[in-house]
């Protein structure tokens, strides 16, 4: 048992084809240049996955990168990034999750785990303090993820596991990797990559401990970080209601994905999904490692057809995906979440293809004969049946398991109902109801149609007015909020105009993407009270005290920018085109209960974003100067 400073200090490489293990030291320049988590993943995937690799073939590389500050008491430092080439987008696939997997992997001795090749038979990986074994998975292959976890946790008390369910085994393209029972690395189909490798689970049990470089100052900084987070006006609401806070404002902005983005909101939305309804079904909160918010709810359904369900749930994105996208009841959303977890499926993508199928059924593109049943929006039983069919690739479910984009190509007349960007299904937010930094971020996101890689740290959900269409969003806070935002002054002045009370979407998008990248590299959570109050200044202090590597706020942001550019370069090498950064056609042709998008205006703000990134404004490619500046030439 070795005591490590900040980092565990080692990278574990497992080749499943050769049944071969290799441990290599974590180089210092990797830590300085890429920090950890998503940074390590970006570098490793870029270097090791050749252009044109089949995402479900043996040459794809699946990387688990633990955030640099995971294993410390820094508030919310719990998160691990998983990346590979995505079977959904064919681009950089990546997903982030908290809980206790990362701290265990690091305490077992590894900052990153790199999985290559393809096993001929189902296996699982057991990683304990210093020892690594590839073991036969006959006992758990074919089991849903909860049943498999029960077996593994019984066998290895105190261990954590990342594993796939039947969806991953069946290579459902949007299968996810479950992170213990209720969490997941959900987006971009990483569970299908793991399933294709015939790797059922990664079990980790680590006990060796991690030490800060300077204990006293690290404790002081972590305490200061806690006070900062608690002082955010977003803290109390998030502590009480978690992410479900966003369900009502987006409904009132007509910015929900109601019935496959046909309408901005459902008529009874307020009654069925409001806070009191959430309170009725929930009791208590659950936290990830070192979190001081505990946004997750413990849910218990006490009556009705889903009576007896008890689980961690009521996270806004899946709940709204099923509730508004498919028109399901709140109780059925909990059932869908249970199935999503057990089967190991990305709930945003699953709900999106289910909503797509319901719209195709409603419009006669597919029939009850093809489906085996009628599929109307709001029919809980039929929706859950379809979800089951998708996970097991039965009937039409087999085609829908390919994801909206491919299913749209395979089903005649289906393409226009596929709500995706770059092959990844869009989450609940409709840019026609509210165009913000978040909306632009879905177009510029390296992983496709997704809202979690760009969010204005001082987004104001009280307002939805937009006098300067597509260019700005309303700032809406006072001078004190402006001053408290940790952003270099010259940039802040450009990003926020206090007099006009606006935030510049292009400039803020670039800042928010880099900031979130920094969080995902250090393993800190992006929940609003954290993103609002924790900036590069305190993160630089914490990183330096934790690892002993002197890094300034500017250097951290530069590393975050480097990581973003590496992921973008990976995408370009895989053939991403400028015109791929586009919302589904419906958004430009129908108003969806709000207003149609103006394509020219969006092209204009995209150009501004590329300029803010130092990229070529027409093509959206990193310029040679930028590549040189970041040391990527």
């Amino acid at each position, binding site marked *: *048992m070795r005591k490590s400073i900040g980092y565990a200090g080692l990278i574990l490489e497992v080749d499943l084809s050769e049944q071969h293990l290799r441990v290599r030291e974590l180089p210092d320049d990797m830590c300085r240049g890429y920090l950890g988590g998503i940074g390590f993943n970006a570098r490793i995937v870029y270097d090791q996955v050749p252009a044109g690799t089949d995402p479900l073939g043996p040459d794809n590389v699946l990387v688990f990168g633990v955030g640099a500050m995971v294993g410390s008491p820094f508030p919310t430092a719990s998160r691990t990034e998983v990346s590979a080439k995505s079977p959904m987008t064919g681009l950089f696939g990546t997903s982030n999750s908290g809980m206790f997997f990362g701290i265990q992997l690091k*305490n077992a001795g590894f900052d990153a785990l790199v999985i290559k090749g393809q096993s001929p038979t189902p296996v699982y990986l057991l990683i304990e303090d210093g020892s690594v074994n590839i073991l036969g998975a006959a006992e758990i292959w074919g089991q849903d993820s909860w049943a498999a976890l029960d077996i593994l946790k019984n066998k290895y008390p105190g261990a954590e596991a990342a594993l796939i369910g039947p969806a991953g085994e069946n290579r459902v393209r949007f299968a996810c990797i479950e992170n213990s029972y209720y969490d997941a690395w959900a987006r971009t189909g990483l569970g299908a990559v793991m399933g294709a490798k015939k790797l059922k689970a990664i079990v980790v049990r680590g*006990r060796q401990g991690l*030490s800060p470089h300077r204990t006293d100052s690290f404790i002081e900084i972590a305490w200061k970080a806690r006070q900062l987070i*608690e002082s955010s006006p977003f803290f109390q609401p998030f502590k009480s209601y978690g992410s479900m806070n966003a369900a009502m404002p987006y409904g009132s902005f007509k910015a929900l994905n109601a019935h496959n983005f046909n309408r901005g909101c459902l008529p009874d939305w307020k009654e069925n999904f409001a806070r009191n309804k959430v309170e009725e079904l929930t009791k*208590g909160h*659950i*936290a*990830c490692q*070192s979190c001081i918010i505990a946004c997750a709810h413990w849910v218990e359904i006490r009556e009705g057809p889903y009576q007896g369900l008890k689980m961690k749930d009521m996270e806004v994105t899946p709940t709204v995906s099923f509730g508004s996208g498919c028109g399901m009841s709140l109780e059925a959303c909990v059932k869908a979440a249970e199935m999503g977890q057990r089967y190991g499926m990305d709930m945003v993508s699953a709900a999106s293809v289910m909503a797509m199928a319901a719209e195709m059924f409603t419009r006669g593109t597919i029939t009850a004969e093809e489906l085996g049943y009628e599929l109307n929006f709001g029919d809980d039983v039929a929706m859950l049946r379809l979800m089951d069919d998708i996970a097991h690739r039965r009937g039409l479910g087999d085609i829908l398991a390919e994801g909206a984009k491919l299913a749209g190509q395979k089903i005649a007349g289906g393409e226009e109902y596929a709500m995706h960007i770059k092959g990844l299904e869009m989450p609940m937010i409709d840019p026609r109801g509210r165009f913000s930094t978040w909306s632009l971020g879905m177009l510029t996101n390296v992983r496709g149609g997704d809202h979690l890689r760009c969010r204005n740290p001082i987004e104001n959900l009280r307002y939805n007015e937009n006098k300067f269409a597509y260019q700005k969003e309303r700032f809406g806070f006072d001078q004190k909020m402006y001053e408290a935002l940790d952003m270099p002054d010259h940039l802040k002045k450009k990003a926020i105009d206090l007099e006009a009370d606006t935030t510049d979407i292009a400039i803020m998008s670039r800042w928010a993407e880099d900031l979130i990248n920094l969080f995902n590299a250090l393993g800190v959570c992006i929940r609003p009270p954290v993103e609002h109050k924790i900036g590069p200044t305190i993160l630089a202090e914490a990183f330096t005290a934790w690892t002993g590597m002197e890094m300034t706020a500017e250097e951290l942001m530069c590393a975050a920018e480097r990581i973003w550019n590496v992921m973008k370069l990976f995408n370009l090498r895989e053939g991403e085109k400028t015109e791929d950064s586009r919302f589904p056609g419906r958004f430009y042709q129908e108003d969806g209960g709000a207003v149609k998008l103006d394509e020219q205006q969006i092209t204009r703000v995209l150009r501004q974003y590329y300029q803010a990134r130092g990229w070529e404004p027409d093509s959206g490619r990193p310029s040679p100067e930028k590549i040189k500046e970041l040391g990527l030439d």
Partner: protein
Amino acid sequence: MSKVLLIEYDKCVGCKNCEMICSLVHEGTCSSRLSRIRVARDERAGWNIPVSCAMCEEPICVAVCPSGACGRDPNTGIIMIDSARCIGCRQCVMACPFGHANFDPLKKTAFKCDLCQGDPQCAKWCWTGAISYGPLEEWLAQKRQQLALKLHP
């Protein structure tokens, strides 16, 4: 002892930050295994139970200790293990009815909560109020008050 470590199970959300801070201040390393306070957690069932030293009036850990390493500090009343005198027999670990007393596999000695000499860091860092430190009587009075407020809002 006028103040005691007060633990309310239903307030714990299972963040385990108490384990991180406890092991860090005592051992200079963040390690659940070396933490004096431990959170028993069943994720599937959704419960979290922080367990620390109850500072028993008749401590069995002291009674079974053959070397005199485990004993009550006459000044503070805190039950502590003097690692210099500990012979590593693990008797206190086995005798503790709460699974609290523990064994350091590197130092080969037993360890337990020392209430940070009267300023327990687990209580300071616990943000939910599941772990607090104060006089029992005041805490009970507060609980009764909360009950009264529930009945007469």
